[in-house]
């Protein structure tokens, strides 16, 4: 009986304020899609970090005839110098930090380059003597590249020591910035959504002020008066949340998995299971947001 009565009131309220309800649905939809996007982006970053950081190597580039930086003076590294570097890498000071390392000659680097950029114009411009021979080092703990840098940088014949993580960091900085931007937009949109829900509920309460007045007069409990309005706000926000959930799943399914994953087959991307993990978060956030703002809005009407 009471539940039926409450649901009838909710239905009436939603129908009476249809345009506002649609606005609430759209704003929660957009804002929660941004929230979902930000969460997925963070998941992607974590995933890529754990994938790439384990594979990140330290490159010890040796001098070529063209290099002028570091310990080079337009002189290619001599076999002696290369042997010295290798000896350093095998020495008891550095060996404990190093998992494996290998030497890549100019010819090998050239072959790799040709393979990587096959079919592109730059592949024809490069000759083997332009490539840099290097030691590629896998560290046991990838965060300790500073040790290598300190002990190898000054050696004769070493051009530079580069930790690939520093290159990756730039990529992650960009992704992080994107995710913070998404969070920022989401926060603004969520504020707008909360205000819009509050306004909608206040409007709904105003159009039913006669009923509310009589309910208060005859002693309906505050909770009984509040409930239809809160359900009304939550219902509208939930529709928006469901749409946002569908959008997030759709983006992952069709854009990330369908397009990105095929274009960049070597990178692992967030999958459908990650997206499905985000959906309940969005639903919960939408419902909570609506319940809180509707509650605040309607409480003003019930102050005794």
């Amino acid at each position, binding site marked *: 009986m009471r539940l039926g*009565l409450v649901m009838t009131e909710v239905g009436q309220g939603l129908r009476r304020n249809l345009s506002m309800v649609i606005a609430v649905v759209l704003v929660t939809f957009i804002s929660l899609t941004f929230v979902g996007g930000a969460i997925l982006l963070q998941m992607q970053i974590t995933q890529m970090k754990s994938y790439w950081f384990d594979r990140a190597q330290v490159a010890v580039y040796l001098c070529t005839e063209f290099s002028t930086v570091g310990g080079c003076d337009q002189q290619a590294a001599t076999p002696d110098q290369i042997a010295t570097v290798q000896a350093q890498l095998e020495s008891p000071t550095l060996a404990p930090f190093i998992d494996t390392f290998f030497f890549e000659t100019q010819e090998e680097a050239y072959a790799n380059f040709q393979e990587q950029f096959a079919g592109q114009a730059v592949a024809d411009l490069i000759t083997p003597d332009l490539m840099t021979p290097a030691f590629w080092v896998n560290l046991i703990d990838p965060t300790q590249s500073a040790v290598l840098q300190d002990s190898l940088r000054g050696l004769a014949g070493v051009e530079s020591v580069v930790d690939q993580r520093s290159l990756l960091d730039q990529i992650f900085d960009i992704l992080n910035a994107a995710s913070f931007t998404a969070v920022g937009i989401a926060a603004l949109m969520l504020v707008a959504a909360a205000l819009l829900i509050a306004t909608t509920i206040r409007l709904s309460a105003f159009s039913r002020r*006669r*009923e509310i007045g*009589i309910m208060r*007069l*005859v*002693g309906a409990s505050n909770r*009984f*008066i509040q409930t239809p309005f809160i359900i009304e706000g939550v219902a509208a926000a939930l529709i928006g949340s469901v749409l946002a959930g569908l959008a997030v799943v759709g983006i992952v399914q069709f854009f990330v998995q369908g397009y990105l994953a095929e274009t960049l087959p070597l990178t692992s991307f967030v999958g459908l299971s990650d997206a499905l993990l985000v959906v309940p978060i969005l639903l919960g956030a939408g419902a909570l947001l609506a319940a809180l703002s509707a509650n605040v809005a309607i409480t003003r009407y019930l*102050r005794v």
Partner: protein
Amino acid sequence: MIRFDEVTKVYRGTARPALNSVSLEILSGEFVFLVGASGSGKSTFLRLVLKEEKPSDGTIHVLGHDLGSISSRKVPYFRRNLGVVFQDFRLLPNKTVFDNVAFTLQVIGKSKGFIHEAVPDALQTVGLDGKGQRFPHELSGGEQQRVAIARAVVNKPAIMLADEPTGNLDPETSAGIMALLERINANGTTVIMATHDAGIVDRLQRRVIEVIGGRIVRDERGGGYKTQAHPVVAQGFGIGTAS
């Protein structure tokens, strides 16, 4: 049943109190007329009894509750003991007569069975049986006020507050409404009625409390609208019987 002790009410932003240190006691089963000019404080008195307003000073006891110590969460439950009728009826235009009366019981969580028993009963009490499916706009003013009274009494309240219930009605219809209120009073409900209608007050010869400028200037049992006895200006008159 209702006791005011030195109650003062000053609305925010006004200097002059709407009620100025009013003390009085209304006993169970009494029929009380509250008379006085517009703005004299009658409606404030009724709003204080309903706990729609808090007194600025003094204490109010209604039905054994100290209104100052009822938490706002408990106020709705307290109000279920009171029935209220207004000059403008305050019916819901999109609900039938039956539903208007049933609404009161629905929102306080009464069962369907109880509602289907109590509502026709209340409609019969006010003389509207058979008109349950009409809408308010299909009824005369007097009939609409009867619906409002049915709504007020359907939950069998101990106290009924009526704010100028005959203010919009012609004398003949008013007489019918007053007969109804007297019958409700005779069944044990305390009735407090604010009114400007001198004819009604003079005819019924009940207790009359006259308020001027927020002070009780007269509290007379069996009085008329205009004072027949010497006017009493001393404040606090009528608490002699307070206990």
